[in-house]
Every structure is written in C-alpha cells, then in structure tokens.
C-alpha cells in the first residue's frame, strides 16, 4: 500500500524540500490549522484513555463523513471487557460539533489515601487552553470502573459527582451535587457524567474552576473508598485513566491573520 500511495502522491513533489522550504511549509500549514505555533505536548502517550477515546471519535467521524451523520461510539474500542455502563447520549451534539477536546486530570494524588473521614476523590481540568470563539455545547466526565471480585455481585454503591464551589483549610469544601447514581459491584466499563453546565461556568469564570469531587457510599450510607469499588485512579492503567471531554461549536468564523 505504501508503494502504491507513494506512486500516486509523488506526481507533485519530485524532490526533498530544503530545510528553509520545509520550515515555510510548516508555517503555512500551521496557519491553515489556526495554530500560532507547533504544539509541544509533555506527556503524549497515544495509548492513554483520552487519546484513544478521541481516536475512536475521529474514526467514527472519518468513516461516516459522507453520510448524513455519525453515531456516538457508545462502545469505545478500548473497552475490552464487558459492556460499557454509560448510557447513550443524544448524537446531535457530536454531529454539530466543530471541535471536541479532551482534558487530562491534573490532580496528582488521590485524597482517598489521606486520613479523612469521608472518602472522596478529586479531579481538576485546565480549560484555559480552549481556542477562542468556541462555545461548549456538551461536556462529560468519564471514569472507568473495574470488576471487583472480592465483592458480592448484587452489592450496590451510590456514586455521586460534585462541583467544588469553595475550598476551606479547616473543613470540607462547599460542594454542589451534579449527578448521583447506583452502580453494581459486578459492573465494568466507563461511567459518564454530564458536566455541561459546570464546564460553561468554568469557561466563563476560570477562577472558580476548583474541580470535581467524587464520593461513594454503600447502601447503608457509609463512605466507601472508590478504589475498593473498582474505580480507577492515578495508580491504575493509563488506558483507563479518568478524563473530561467537551464538545464545541464555533461562534465566530476563523480569520487567518495577515502575515
């Protein structure tokens, strides 16, 4: 295939570009892509959860580009075992999206390891890198739940996701409940929480972006360590790390600057 492709494409460029020409071409293509400079990602593991999820979206968009629309891949390719827990969402926001962006979790240590009464886990996402002129139409927080063998299959937990409103040094943070649901111990796959309103709030008020908190309770209302229930954290495999994904619609036409 490579030979065939090479033959087809070699009809135009017959020679290697000189380094100056190559730089010029790089600059022009970056301008077309609307980027001020070439990004230099620090950790760019392409097999991490977020890049793989995004690649799945890319493939869905590419393969069905000529059709009327594309469907949200509710069973991501990287979910190797068991059905995904996440419910299917409306496809429209994906069809309408001009841009989709995933955000890595910036919290280095799970609070669950600290001696606190209430087990919880914190997540933070830097939304300052969103290009100008893009409005959030939908946003999700995604966390993977592994199957836990030590637990009874019929055991359930209540999982709650909160937006952190204010932090205090002497007491627990002020929280706003975003979503709460019951999960089975035997379930396995990605849990998806709608955080559209919160994301919009963070974009408009970057100083109020204090992240999310996740807490787990047993049926008796006792606080449960998320790790015990199989929720993957920082120490888990890279392909199952929690992340955030947001869908955008362009609010203004991108005009390239005059050079």
């Amino acid at each position, binding site marked *: 295939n490579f030979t065939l492709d090479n033959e*087809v*494409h070699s*009809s*135009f*460029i017959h020679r290697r570009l000189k380094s100056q020409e*190559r730089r010029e*071409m*790089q600059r022009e*293509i970056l301008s*077309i*892509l609307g980027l001020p400079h*070439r*990004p*230099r*990602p*620090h*950790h*760019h593991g*392409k097999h991490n959860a*977020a*890049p793989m999820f*995004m*690649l799945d*979206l*890319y493939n869905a*968009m*590419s393969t069905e*580009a000529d059709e009327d629309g594309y469907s949200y891949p509710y069973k991501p390719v990287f979910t190797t075992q068991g059905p995904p827990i996440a419910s299917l969402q409306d496809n429209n926001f994906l069809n309408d*999206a*001009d*841009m*989709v*962006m*995933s*955000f*890595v979790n910036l919290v280095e240590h799970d609070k669950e390891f600290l001696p606190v009464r209430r087990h919880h886990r914190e997540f933070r996402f*830097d939304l300052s*890198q969103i290009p100008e002129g893009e409005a959030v139409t939908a946003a999700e927080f995604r966390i993977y739940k592994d199957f836990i063998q030590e637990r009874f299959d019929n055991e359930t937990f209540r999982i709650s996701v909160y937006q952190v409103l204010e932090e205090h040094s002497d007491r627990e943070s002020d929280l706003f409940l975003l979503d709460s649901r019951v999960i089975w111990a035997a379930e396995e796959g990605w849990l998806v929480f709608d955080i559209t309103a919160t994301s919009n709030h963070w974009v408009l008020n970057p100083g109020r972006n204090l992240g999310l908190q996740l807490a787990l309770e047993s049926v008796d209302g006792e606080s449960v360590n998320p790790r015990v229930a199989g929720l993957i954290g920082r120490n888990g495999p890279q392909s199952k790390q929690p992340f955030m994904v947001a869908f955008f619609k362009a609010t203004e036409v991108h005009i390239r600057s005059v050079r």
Partner: protein
Amino acid sequence: SAQGGGKQRHGNRYKTAKGQEALRMANIAENSSGDQKQACKKHELYVSFRDLGWQDWIIAPEGYAAYYCMGECAFPLNSYMNATNHAIVQTLVHFINPETVPKPCCAPTQLHAISVLYFDDSSNVILKKYRNMVVRACGCH
C-alpha cells in the same frame, strides 16, 4: 433595453458583429495553436504531516490529499467541467478585449472538510473539523 433608440440598436448590432468576429478568430487561433495547454482539472497534492516531522503531536491523520486546481479555461468553455455561466461570459469578454479582461480562473467549485486529531501544549487532545480544506471539484470561474 426596450428604451434603446435606432442609433443605439445599430451600435449594438455593430458590437455584436465585432464580438462574433473576434470569437471566430480566437477560436481559429485556439485550435491552430501548437502547444495544447492542459484543461482545468483537479490535481493531487498530498500534505504529509509525517514528512513535516509532526508525528509527536498530530495523532491522525498521517497526512491528507489536499488537491489543487490547475489548467486553462480556454474556449469553448462548455466542454470543460463545472464552468459557471459567468465564466462563459467572462471568456467572451476576454476574446473581445484580451488585453484588459482576463480569462476565467481555474479554481475549486466544491470543497470538503477534514478532521485533525492532535495534542496541545498541555497534552490535552483536540479533534477539530476544518471546513473547506479539500478540493472536491475544480471548475472555471
């Protein structure tokens, strides 16, 4: 115009005759021309992100067939693909006044979008749809 006088009508008739003569002459010149120029059509230009050394931040695609339009929009335009009505008029005017009025341009008539998946500086991943990036069809404008 319905308001035109006899003198003007005569002028128009004269101009039309002049135009037709110009067209006839141009047609002969075009057909007898030794160097047959290539007609306006789509050509492939592959932009390789790999060759640009961007594999570390562009996840997909490896590159894309951008295409470009090249060739001549020569008389008679009806035989060329996708010539706009205005391009045909433009050709006629060019023949009447070749020094000042240019021929129609060979340019894209249909463009497509592509999606690019890449890392930003913070290792977040962006999937962006770029509209009007790939030429689907060329034509004379």
